[in-house]
């Protein structure tokens, strides 16, 4: 955090694989606001091979749009002097594939999973987990490490005072693999040891000479507790020292990043993009005391972030995306699952051809309404699968002793249950082209409702121009500035969804609502299997009383009423009585098309003539 001196203006960039995005934030009155945004192609690869060129191009666009001088030749003007320059320049990076790591643990579902969470939380892509019980023979593990060539390895295993033999065995496997780093050949592969502290001498003996070994605190000092932060900090440090330093132009970029304090200019680290996104989501969850899920759906990967019970989790679904990985979405979800979101008849081969075309021409965007509907159908499945994977990793600790009472005789919950509680979810934030750039915001609403199936009362939002990475790194320096911009300029509030859990009879009243809208009180009865949209603008709130009928539940108990405050958005309020647990779509094509069209019309998702247009 900045000490004492208030930052007047902040320039932040995010160096992505294809585009470098720059934003300019200024203090206006008491709060910070986004001024302009600029972007330029990333120049980390040939022919430029210097990331700073793309950064300067993006900043030049910001200069032009903002009408103020930020650059002095090839240098950013710091600190701010009158209207020239900025008080802080910060950056994130995912260029060159981001940080790719391998992690190890003794038991895959225990220290292996803790190591995975530590690496993912630090913004890495976890290429593989090597564990003592992964049923692979030592030579297979060695070959795997050699083949993958990670940027870094996180070696963990055993609690403090626990097993030594297994951890030392893992170290011997790494030593035998003698892995070389992916970028650069002049340095040793960074290995972070975060396992049983009693085994440190043996680990140093085996890896000290062969790798750039760094020892930190155990990520699982006891079975009952994780200690991930020291390992995450170490990953960030090594990411800067080793990985970033090897990427073209990053040494120069690292020398630019920093911010003005009372004691002068303080350098700031470049963060991996996903770590920065996670950071801003954690910050918001902490500040507002809410439970949040965030998703960033890209072309090749989909990142899901969540904060439940103050526990932050992040997962990367490396093969789920909307362009390069779109065929894999089809393979994993299956054609019937994609087709169930398409509100018109379509030949199976035609759908396959469209999807393959998107894969080989990843930069194309839908040219017709039909193409848009198909793309959004696929995105629902990509998001659903990514969220399923997230739920599987965002779990409580396994291997922890339980305390029972006699009432547990017939229902014994097991440890390691998912932390994701959709009923307790307060805010769902979507990001990525298909969500942020949907022609109608209401399309993003329906995509998120269909993919995540939020329960109870949940606010929905999308990231307007994907500036969460920049705000994440800014939160490290100035939390207030980051949250001000996040709330005012980053998030586009879509509205609030109200979805009771349970199953009812099609057509029978499922929910009675009395909502005090600014235009007056409105009484609504929503039949089961239907959706209703009510207007409530951005910045407006409305008190509401809901009476779920029968055994439907909004969180107060089956059939019990709920009083709550609804927050408005560009979409308004969405009363979703299509059922949860289970959520069902008719399987026969005619009924499916009828229901999808009915829902689409109720929310005004697509132009009404789409059915005839498609037919």
């Amino acid at each position, binding site marked *: 955090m900045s000490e004492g001196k208030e930052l007047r203006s902040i320039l932040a960039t995010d160096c992505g694989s294809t585009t470098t995005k720059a934003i300019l934030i200024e203090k206006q009155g008491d709060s910070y606001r986004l001024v302009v945004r600029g972007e330029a192609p990333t120049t980390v690869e040939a022919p430029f091979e210097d990331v700073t060129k793309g950064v300067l191009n993006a900043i030049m666009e910001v200069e032009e749009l903002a009408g103020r001088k930020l650059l002095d030749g090839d240098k950013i003007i710091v600190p701010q002097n009158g209207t020239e320059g900025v008080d802080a320049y910060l950056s994130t990076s995912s260029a060159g594939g981001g940080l790719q790591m391998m992690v190890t643990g003794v038991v895959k579902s*225990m220290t292996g999973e803790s190591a995975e969470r530590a690496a993912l939380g630090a913004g890495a892509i976890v290429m593989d987990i090597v564990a*003592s*019980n992964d049923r692979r023979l030592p030579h297979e593990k060695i070959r795997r490490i050699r083949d993958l060539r990670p940027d870094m390895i996180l070696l963990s*295993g055993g609690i403090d005072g626990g097993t030594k033999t297994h951890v030392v065995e893992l170290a011997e496997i790494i030593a035998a693999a003698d892995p070389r780093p992916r970028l650069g050949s002049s340095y040793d592969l960074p290995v972070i040891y975060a396992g049983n502290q009693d085994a440190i001498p043996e680990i140093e003996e085996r890896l000290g000479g062969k790798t750039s070994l760094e020892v930190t605190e155990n990520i699982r000092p006891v079975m009952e507790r994780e200690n991930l932060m020291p390992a995450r900090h170490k990953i960030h440090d090594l990411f800067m020292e080793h990985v970033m330093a090897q990427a073209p132009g990053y040494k120069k970029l690292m020398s630019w990043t920093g911010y003005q304090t009372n004691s002068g200019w303080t350098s700031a680290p470049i963060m991996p993009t996903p770590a920065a996104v996670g950071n801003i989501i954690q910050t918001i969850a902490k500040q507002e005391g809410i439970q949040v899920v965030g998703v960033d759906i890209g072309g090749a990967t989909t990142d899901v972030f969540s904060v439940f019970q103050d526990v932050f989790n992040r997962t990367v679904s490396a093969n789920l995306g909307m362009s390069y990985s779109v065929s894999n979405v089809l393979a994993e979800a299956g054609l019937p699952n994609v087709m169930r979101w398409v509100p018109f008849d379509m030949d199976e081969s035609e759908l396959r051809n469209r999807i393959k075309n998107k894969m080989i021409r990843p930069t194309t965007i839908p040219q017709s309404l039909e193409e848009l509907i198909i793309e959004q159908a696929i995105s629902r499945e990509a998001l659903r699968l990514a969220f399923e994977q997230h739920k599987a990793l965002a779990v409580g600790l396994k291997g922890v002793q339980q305390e029972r009472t006699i009432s547990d005789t017939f229902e014994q919950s097991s440890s390691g249950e998912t932390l994701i509680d959709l009923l307790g979810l307060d805010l769902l934030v979507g990001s990525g082209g298909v969500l942020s750039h949907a022609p109608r915001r209401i399309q993003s609403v329906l995509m998120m409702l269909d993919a995540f199936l939020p329960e109870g009362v949940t606010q929905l939002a999308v990231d307007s121009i994907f500036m969460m990475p920049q705000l994440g790194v800014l939160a490290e320096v100035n939390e207030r500035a980051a949250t001000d911009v996040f709330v005012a300029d980053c998030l586009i509030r879509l509205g609030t969804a109200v979805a009771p859990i349970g199953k009812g009879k099609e057509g029978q009243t499922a929910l009675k609502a009395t909502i005090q809208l600014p235009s007056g009180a409105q009484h609504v009865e929503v039949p089961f299997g239907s959706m209703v949209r009510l207007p409530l603008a951005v910045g407006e709130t409305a008190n509401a009383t809901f009476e779920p009928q029968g055994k439907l539940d909004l969180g107060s108990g089956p059939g019990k009423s709920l009083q709550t405050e609804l927050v408005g958005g560009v979409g308004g309020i969405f009363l979703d009585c299509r059922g949860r647990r289970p959520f069902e779509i008719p399987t026969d094509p005619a009924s499916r098309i009828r229901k999808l069209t009915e829902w689409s019309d109720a929310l005004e998702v697509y132009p009404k003539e789409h059915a005839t247009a498609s037919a």
Partner: protein
Amino acid sequence: MIKNRTPLPASPSSAKRLALSACSGLVLFLGLAALLATSAAAAVPGLVVRDNPDDRGEAILVEWDGEAAGDSVRVERAESEAGPWVMRRALPGSAARFVDQGEGGPERGKTYFYRVNGQVLSATPTAQWWNKGRTNLFLILALYLGLIMVFLNIARKGGSLFIRKIAGLDAMEEAIGRATEMGKPVLYVPGIDDANNIQTIYSMAILNSVAKMVAQYDTELIVPLAKAFVLPLAEETVRSGYMDVGRPDSFRADNIRFLSDEQFAFTAAVNGIMLREKPAANLFLGSFFAESLVLAETGFTTGAIQIAGTANIHQLPFFVVACDYTMIGEEFFATSAYLSREPMLVGTLKGGDMMKLVIMVFLVVAAIAATMGHSEAFRSLLVIR
């Protein structure tokens, strides 16, 4: 039984006595005549003598019309029509039937004559291949075996057979994983009953799966035993588990320990192991009695993950409160199929479950029918002769 009587020689000295004798003879004659007349009048209506059906040929069934018969019915038997007649039973007329069997009963293939209140009929006992009185039992057995065969076939063909989640069994790997991470052994107690107890046998099947897991995780397994006969069984079970996963070198015979067949001496010794060696996972799977709470409480204080399973339902409350996971009753017997997923075991388990479902449905329907006053139809279905 009537026997011929020779007249007494007349005394030459007493004519009066002779006259008295003549009177007596007349009375006797009249009495006999009356008796014969009565017998003829009491001929048993509806009398049938035949081979007793559905048996192995060692009984003859005598039936008559119970309502029309007189006060009493005498059943005599002879091997020829001429006799001699042997009294088999005297019954009230309302009894309506008599099965001549058991001690002194007829022999298979031999013809017997029955005189029932003087009326003579014959029958030959023969053996039947099919006992129609037990057809219901056969059908139930056929249904049970059929269900098992069907599910066995499905399992062998790789069909997916759903077995509901049993938290205790899913936690088995977790418990062993915990022991591995902590560098501590796994303790497996297969109950205190002998090798002929079904729970001990099932426990050995589970021990095999546990031994495989432990060998894969390369951690230590301690098996204390209360019965000497179980020792070789347990030793071989664990050894084969280690061999199955290719780690025979990790097997330690010393860890399969016979402690004592005295209940509380054994309990004290197991507590000693828990307190000294601090296993990170305690598995109590088998037949347990009063020692259950002592063992489970001690294990809890050492901080171990504990999984218990027993069919001795009186011990379940103690295990439930002191263990992390407890398998109750049938769950314990499903364990080996759940863990191994072998088609033979899974198919048998599913077949058994389905049969239980059939019985439950039958009981519900029968209870409803009985409540509505139609219990006879169901009762007759269940009668076994």
